């Protein structure tokens, strides 16, 4: 593990998916933090200041887009790269997310784990 490993915050309520994503990114040399709710995710984000956030939309209580809006209101969270990783794929959600400001909108069932890693590396300027 490199000392200068980039930090990724994973906000996802499905345990199986957290494990799969978390393992994959750790294997690829990232430091991974995960949260099962938007509230916890928000707290961790402000505490740990990750380099990138992978955000699900359907979450208990507060949903992903609401959290994203709040994050963008924070001084620190204004420009932090966020990639939506969700199985909701209707245009309404995509447009809304793009409007608030996200790097990309990925549909879980349509992407491979390796695709997600490639994209994250691309954003963070890491060699793939």
């Amino acid at each position, binding site marked *: 593990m490199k000392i200068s490993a980039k930090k990724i915050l994973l906000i996802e309520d499905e345990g*199986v*998916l957290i494990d799969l994503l978390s393992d994959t990114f750790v294997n690829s040399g990232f430091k991974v933090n995960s949260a099962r709710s938007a509230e916890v995710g928000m707290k961790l984000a402000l505490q740990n200041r990750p380099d990138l956030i992978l955000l699900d939309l359907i979450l208990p209580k507060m949903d992903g887009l609401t959290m994203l809006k709040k994050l963008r209101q924070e001084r620190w969270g204004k420009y932090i790269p966020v990639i939506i990783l*969700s199985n909701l794929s209707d245009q309404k959600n995509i447009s809304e997310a793009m409007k608030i400001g996200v790097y990309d909108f990925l549909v*879980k069932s349509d992407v491979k784990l390796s695709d997600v890693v490639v994209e994250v590396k691309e954003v963070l300027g890491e060699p793939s």
Partner: protein
Amino acid sequence: MELKHNLRKTGIDVVGDVPWGTHFCQFYETKQDLLDVLIPYFKEGLEHHELCVWVTSEFLTTNEAKLAMQKNMPGFSTYLKKGQIEIFPHTEWYLKGGIFEMKRVLADWVHKHDEALKKGFEGTRVSGNPFWIDNKKDWNDFAAYEAEINQVIDNYKLIVLCTYSLNKCSSTELIDVISNHEFTLIKKKGKWTNVESVTHSKMEEALRKSESRYRSHVELTGELAWTTNPKGEAEEDMPEWRKYTGQSFNDIQGAGWTKALHPDDAKRVIKAWQKAIITKRSYEIEYRLRRFDGTYHYFLVYGVPTFRENGSIREWVGTCIDITRRKKMETELTEHATQLESLNRSLKEEFVKEVALLESIGDGVIATDKKGHIIALNKKTETLFGWKTKDMMGKSLFIKGFKLTDEQGKIIPNSLRPIRLAMVTAQVGHGIYFIVRKGCKRIPVFITSSPIILDDKVVGAINIYRDVSQQIAIDRAKDEFLYFASHTLRTPLSAVAWSIERLNENSEGYSVKQKKALDIIYDQTQRMIKLTNDLLDVTRMEFGILSYKYEETNPKKIALDVITDLKNQITDKKIRFKLISNHQITPYHTYSNAIYIILHNLLSNAVKFTPPGGKVNLTIAKINQNLILQVIDSGIGIPKSAQPKILQKMYRASNVKNKFEGSGLGLYIINGIITHMGGTITVKSKLGRGSVFTIKLPLTLEAIQSEERKYL
């Protein structure tokens, strides 16, 4: 005969005989003037068995009167003793009790008259002298008394001669005296004259004057005066009638005047006229009369009989009034009335139709006046608001019973209700609101409020309430299904797919069999994902909620994206793929995701159904304001019988059914999208040789653009 029998001799030469009930007067200047008239007057009365009463004055006293009588009538004393003549001063008669009282004096005269008849006299002959009068009031009272005598004297056997001093009378008093007596005796050049003839001639002149006035009146008003004899026959001339009708004097004689009537009216008129003559009743009728120029005019005709003293008809007089104008107005009025009535009837019909129309509408409809008071509504509103029609009528739409809330139950302020928009801005206001009713669930309604505009002013509003409970329930079910399909179904699929991916990362320890099994699991998971995605797309398309992304895009770039997505299949099957386009293809505004879905479906089909080593060409072109996408493959082709059906939902041709994976939804979805964009899709295919799909999409999506822009 009877009249003659009643005549009495006055003893005065210029008067001669008069009937009972005669009231006349004399103007005198000297005592001799008085005696000239009164001595023969009373002498005649005494000799003809009448009671005589002489009321004297200071001018000629009682004694002077008696002396003069005795001197001129030898047997006078006997008459006086007998009481046939009474001579006494005015103080014992007019001024009995000190003042003149008209009623008392009249009663005294009547009493005297009745006593005379009782005593067997023929009647009573009197003379009075109002010389005593010295003030205006007494004069006026006395004039009234004289007038009263005129009113009643006909009923009595009385002859009254009033003597007035000419020197005491002013000119107006003179006229009073003359007008209150039937005739007046005045001494002219030493001879007594009866001035009755003078007045009479004056009256005749006045009558002529009045007659000519009447004629000019008749001429001015266009009335025609007429007279006939008692039998209804024209005898006298009727100048206006002749002038109007152009008939000659001879023409109108007898029943000749009826020739000027309208032939259709003549019979009716003659009948009515005959009836009037028989019944002697007045006659009133309308008829058309022919004018000298041959035109007919409406006249209203009145006629009355004038009677002789014996009750027989002397003549008929009447007048014809031109009522053509009135008649014309009447006709016009009648026409207007008819028009109004038919208008009223058609309005009523309209009303009935409107009511039927209102009732036939499945939505609640409430019409209000400009203040928001209900003026009309239909039955459906009863079920929506839970009120009876009669209870809602006239109520304000802004009262509590008609309150609206939002989805959360918060009351919508009146100022934000659609009816306000309609009233204030004269625009159509609409939106989804909720009707709150006691003991019921909130009813979601789509309300449309349209202003009623009359002469540029909002005079009311029509409010339509569409119960959208069902639509909302459907929408909810739809949302729930889409959520289920996209999230709940795809999440475990993602977990499986990603797990296999992780397994495959380090596959050195697996046997060939295990590896193959993993591949199968992975492929089937991908297939499941593909089916789920198709299901999502088809559902969205069918519900019309497939979201289109309207943006500037280059179809060539989308094509390259699709090719990248399919790169593995193309490479695996060694397909010779060719993209044909030119510099004409530049970015433009369209639904980018729609183009992607179309190309992805067409190209993945082409690759799927083309055997390894085959050819797939994609041509992108612009022709006549259309974007043309053409996919040509050298695949297995579509059987002729299947060609018309391949766009149907879940249809799969026989030659692919069991050999190729698929849902039968791809072409169905893209056909829906293409149709939505106003484009067309055509297929040409030969079994075993290949297929050609040609898509034509308009470059400008005008018809739908404005509608959907608001979602973006």
